[in-house]
């Protein structure tokens, strides 16, 4: 019985209780913690026990009386007396068992409360908690990252700055602002919002929209020397993990003007098309070609990452 196994190592009260238990359960036995003579009768148990008297011990903060043998009766210990002792010890044992039970129940209660608290936390969990939109980044692509360069259209060249605002590699998307200088007189600097489809697990090299045919796709992607024509139709190669590759192919599509998204139609400028983009993770350079059915072909975008002693803030959608 594990209960008693524990008692045996504990305090004097417990030791008494074990004795009592022995007396009760095995009345013929003479076992007693203080008795050295194994063959003596029950009567002799108390005679050898003359030193012990009623004593008190502190048990768990309570003063507990330990009924032992009364020295005056020690000479003639009758059966009734012994029985009374046994009874007292029995009571003692009951008390002790009660305490142990309470203690165990207390421990169980603690465990139960912990379990309930854990389950309770799960219940209260915000359904957005397990799928946080933690900021993602790869090399030079992170929120707050900046690229500078130009867009070449025929003999004209326009200064371009790109601000990356959000990167979600899990969704194979990113977005940002594209500032372009000197495109029209009305707007010395135009800023558009664009988002990107990153070629990978979600998007293939085939655009299938924005007036781009497969021919258009092939003709543009092939302008990047890192592009392998075979991968145009090869679905498997798109699944390649972004981190394993040195270059990232994307399509950038502008959607509206910043700050006022309601402005429509700017004379002399259009963002109806989209860019085929190749970003080099090692150099931080971005190359791109603009495509729109009715625009000049192969307008080239060349950007490089703005480096510096870097400070990084961080935000997260909630």
């Amino acid at each position, binding site marked *: 019985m594990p209960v008693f196994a524990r008692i045996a190592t504990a305090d004097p009260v417990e030791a008494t209780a074990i004795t009592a238990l022995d007396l009760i359960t095995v009345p013929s036995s003479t076992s007693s913690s203080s008795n050295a003579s194994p063959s003596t009768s029950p009567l002799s148990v108390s005679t050898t026990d003359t030193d012990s008297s009623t004593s008190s011990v502190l048990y768990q903060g309570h003063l507990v009386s330990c009924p032992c043998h009364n020295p005056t009766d020690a000479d003639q210990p009758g059966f009734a007396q012994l029985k009374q002792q046994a009874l007292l010890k029995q009571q003692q044992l009951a008390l002790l068992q009660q305490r142990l039970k309470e203690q165990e129940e207390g421990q169980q209660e603690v465990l139960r409360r912990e*379990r*309930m608290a854990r*389950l*309770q936390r*799960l*219940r*209260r969990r*915000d*359904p*957005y908690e*397990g*799928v946080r*939109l933690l900021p993602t*980044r*790869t*090399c030079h692509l992170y929120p*707050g990252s900046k690229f*500078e360069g130009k867009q070449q259209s025929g003999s004209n060249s326009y200064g371009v700055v790109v601000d990356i*605002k*959000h990167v*979600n590699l*899990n*969704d194979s*998307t990113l*977005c940002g602002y594209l500032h372009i200088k000197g495109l029209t007189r009305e707007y010395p600097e135009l800023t558009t*919002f664009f*988002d990107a489809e990153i070629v990978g697990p979600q998007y293939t090299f085939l655009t299938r929209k924005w007036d781009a045919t497969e021919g258009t796709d092939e003709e543009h992607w092939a302008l990047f*020397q*890192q592009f*392998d024509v075979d991968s145009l139709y090869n679905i498997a190669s798109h699944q390649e993990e972004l*981190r394993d*590759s*040195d*270059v990232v192919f994307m399509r950038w599509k502008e*959607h*509206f003007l*910043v*700050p006022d*998204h*309601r402005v429509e139609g700017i004379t002399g400028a259009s963002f109806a098309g989209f860019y085929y983009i190749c970003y*080099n*993770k*090692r*150099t*931080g*350079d971005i190359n791109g070609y603009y495509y729109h059915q009715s625009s000049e072909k192969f307008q080239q975008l060349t950007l*490089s990452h*703005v*480096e*510096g*002693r*870097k*400070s*990084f*803030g*961080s*935000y*997260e*959608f*909630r």
Partner: protein
Amino acid sequence: MTLTPHEVAVSQLATDQAVPLDRIKSLRFIKNNIIGNKTKKDLYIQLGIVSRLQDIISTKDDKDSQLKIQAVIVLGSFAFGNESNILALTNSGVVEPLLNCLNIVGDPKLIEAAARTLNAIYSSPKVSRQQLFMGNHLHVLVQLLDTFSNKHRPGQEIIQVHTAELVASILARCCETLEQQMQIADSGAIPLLMRLLASGVSKSQEAALGALAALVKDNPELAQVIAQMRLEKGERPAPFILRLVRDKSPTMRLAAATCLTYLNRAGVIPEHNSDIMLTVLPILVKMLQLTGSVQETAPQVLAHLIWESENMQKAVCDMEAIPKLASIISQMDEEDNVYGIVGQKDKLKENSLLALAAISQLKEDCRKQVIEAKVLSHIVSAMSHPSVGVRAAACQCTRSLSRSVKNLRTSLVDAGIENPLFQLLSDEDLGVLRSATATLCNIVLDVSPMKKTIMERGIVSKFVRMISYGDNVVRLNTVWAIKNLVFEAESDVKENVMRQFGYNNLVLLLNDSEPAVQEQALNLVRNLAHRREHDIEQVFKGLGNGQLLSIIEEKLSWDDPKLLEHALYVLVNIATGSEYHKQSILKRQGILRSVLRSMNHESPAIRVASIWVIINLTWPDDKVPDSVHECVTLLRSMGIEDRLLALNADHDLDVRDRVKTALQHFLADQQQYGHGNNSNNNNNNGVSSTTTRAMSTTTGMMSPDLTGSGNGRHSHMSSRHHNPQQPPQSNDPSASSSSGDAHGGSGGAGSAMDTTHIVTGRSGAGGGHDRR
């Protein structure tokens, strides 16, 4: 004055009146009068019938069970379909005597009637469930689920089955809290419900599904227990329930789908993921086009099923669920306008909004569909709905939609969500407040034009109150909002925020009991000490001398990678500050050791962050060249350069690139100050040669003609670098590369300007770091 027959009937119920037979007659008379007649029900309640009935069912005399049965049935009739009547009943205390009627050895008809009445009473969520869980009631109730035991009484089987169904339904309705779930489970209900589920009787199965669903909802522990059980033929419950999802009865389909949904969300039936995707999802979506209670509940179950699952959200999106939900919501608004009926279909609206929120939680494509469904104006007006549930759900919708830079810049501005949102920040309902503060986090981002307007309305002054509201979620959302608000903000905005919010509050949050709050608070520090020396200085001052670094030092010792990353970036940002700021980091051995340790962290993001600390600390600065040299020397003596060299072979490209930049700083220092520097004499030569070797590798990898080497795609290029000995293995620093030569040439000249110039020039050629 004469009495109406109704008054007579009520008066005859008094215990001291009439013979039992007359009382039974009166009860029958009343029963026939009130069925389906709300006016008469109200009349009788006014005549004080409830206490008379209560007297009858409270008598200990078991002989006149007929009288009791009739009284219980009349009580049930009052309870049906009218919440105010139910509350009139419970306020007079009928629940306890009704529970006492459920005596297992009593008259089965009385038991059934009492169960039916109790079930009707518990249909109101406003009724307290407490009494059911007191004394022996739950135990007795659960025993009534057992229709198979040998307590069978011939001829009573049907009544026993009906009773069991009613009991299952009562259990389903009294299973809201975790405590209730656990008590019901402990009472031994689950095996009995399983047998009811396998009974083959449709109504019983439906009732069992309802109770099982209520038990496993948000309770992974019970879900696990139930998923692991076996039905009589050894089958697990999940495949059995999957068959019921295809039942011809819509209510059965819904009950089965609900049960599977909760099991699935508890993560205990992963083997059925595809079944749920292919079977349960389309069935739930189709239910949106039904009517009544099935249509009302289906969107809620749908939402619950797809939260946190990108795949399921996408699948539901592909099933055209969004236009269906949108039309439910907008149609309801039109009906409200025409008939002025408010409140009738609140639950349907709430659930539909919730489903939209769940669908657009993760995928930008799905958000786009919601915007295109032209439902946003209805969502925004629902944010001011009288029902708290609708308000909270509408706000959850805007929360999902606002997780997009594009929407923040366009549709949400057009829909004008900031006004109703601002109102909701003062809402009395906790659920509303939670979803409103969560949405706020997205609205105050720098890409959101609404940031300006919401700040002008005084959002900052609300933060302190929101922090001390006493709810963990609201507190977390508030810190989150502040950190998003100061992200990339101007200095005056940051100062304004912190003046009103107080650095003392920030310190409290940095030591919050919730690690999630600490994480956000640390991120806030990171954003405050970002970009400008002035901003860094403000944080140093605000937190008090030395305390900032002490806090960071403590956070760096945590195991939590999220805390660690933010703590490292605080250092990265501080290291861009003044000489004083940099020195305050370098003075702390503990911090530097943590940085060194983090360079070996399993997460590449943390390795990158720790290398950035080194990069910024060792950044060449021609104004204080000696100090940079001292810094490099110190870091070298700690073994950081060796660690960087080891990271040259890191499998993460980003890590390798950062390492290159950092090593350039060490190399530049070495080339300027030579080999004779202190503290590293014994292995100085070794280090310098390895550094140089690493740098030549670097240069090689960065030169344009080698770009793309290694991935084997560009066979036309391979002839250009046929030398298989790449990278070069030269041990002679001066021969390693042309830039190395240049540095060597300028080394010792002490011209800081020259050095910087050369570094810039070389980096530029490699496409590197020239924009300082």
